Structures are given as structure tokens and as C-alpha cells.
């Protein structure tokens, strides 16, 4: 899906709980906080963590220059 959108001319970034799967699928840009599948954008009701993850994801959308790069984000919810 991410690839289809990118192919259509829109820059994309994915917040991944499973970065290895995302790499295998050929995601153009990805960030990976330490989160379980289903809470990719952070702990439920933790606005600060969610906000930081969303903000950092968007910053990485701009800063990632290599296709396929996955940047770890320093947030943990397990």
C-alpha cells in the first residue's frame, strides 16, 4: 500500500511495530518505536508519547534520504 501511494507521487512514511516485515515488503521510509503490533503510534491514552512518535515520524519523512531506511525511535511501550 505504501509503495502504491509512493508510486503515485506522494511521499510516505510508516510507523512499524515489525520493522523486519516492513523491510521485506519494500517500504520506502519507516520508523520503528519499541511498540507491540496494534499500538504503533504509542501507548493508549499516553498523549505525550503518541505526539512524540507522530512528530518524529514526520521529521524522518523529510530527513530520510535513502529508500528502505528504517529509523529506530526512542520510545518504548511493551
Amino acid at each position, binding site marked *: *500500500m*505504501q*509503495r*502504491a*501511494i*509512493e*508510486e*503515485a*507521487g*506522494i*511521499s*510516505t*512514511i*510508516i*510507523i*512499524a*511495530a*515489525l*520493522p523486519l*516485515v*516492513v*523491510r*521485506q*515488503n*519494500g*517500504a*520506502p521510509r519507516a520508523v520503528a518505536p519499541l511498540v*507491540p*503490533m*496494534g*499500538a*504503533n*503510534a*504509542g*501507548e*493508549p*491514552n499516553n*498523549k505525550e508519547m*503518541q*505526539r512524540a*512518535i*507522530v*512528530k518524529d*515520524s*514526520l*521529521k524522518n*519523512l*523529510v530527513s530520510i534520504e535513502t*529508500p*528502505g531506511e528504517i529509523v529506530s525511535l526512542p520510545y518504548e511501550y511493551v
Partner: protein
Amino acid sequence: MSFTVVRGLQSEIFIPTVPPVFWTRVSKSLNEMVVALVTAGGVHLKSDKTFRLAGDSSYRRIPGDAKSDDLMVSHGGYDNTDVNKDINCMFPIDRIKELAREGFIKGVALTHIGFMGGGGNIAAFTEITGPEIAGELVEQNVDAVLMTAG
């Protein structure tokens, strides 16, 4: 020195391959971008049709100004406990609205997209659903997409 050539010879060892790259260069700064959310997490309006949990390659439109309380998840492929407590942990719609209000991004897309990833009819996703969703996003002049999946 001569070599023996065997055409079509393949290794017995499965070696995963990474598909070819798609890449759209970022040409604007964040405060000039309209951002859409796209999730494979099965998010949709409570008033909308639920996804078929055994496999569903359709997608749902989610208005950019939708309230988080009006959203729900139908997805059979992951533990829904967290997202049932707070939809923002898979679909950060309130967070992206806040960032638009603060001017960190220019705005929120008129329509976000939810679908049910994690398998199903991959050919339908690749050949039909993916291009349809991409087309909708292009039509509404979205500059960037933030995805949650995987």
C-alpha cells in the same frame, strides 16, 4: 578457461528478495504539507460497514475532522485491546489535528483511509485497492502520508 553454463539454475536455499524501490522525493517543508493518515489497522467510522475479519480487500474513508470517539476497529489479525482503549495508538487522528493547529504541518487531509491489512487477497490489494487509495489521495492533493501498519 571455459565455464559450464546451466540456464535457469536456481539455489535450493530460499533467499528472500526485496521488491524494487518506489521513491517520491520530499519537496516541501512540513509546515507546507497537508498530511493524510492511512492505516492497515482496520480503522473505520462506527457508522460504516465493518471489515470481514476472514479477509477483506476493501477500504473505508475517514473524514479528516472525524472525532476519535466516532471511530472503531474491525481487524482479526492483531490484539485490539490497546486500540479499543484509545484509537489514537493505531490511528493518531487527534495528534495530527493538534500538530496542524500548532502549525507544525499545514493541514490535515479531508479524508484519511483505513483498510484491513495483514494478509488476505494480496493480488487485489496490489492491483486494485492500492492504486484506488493512492488515486484518492492524489485527487485531494495530499502532500504526505503517515501510515501505521506492520
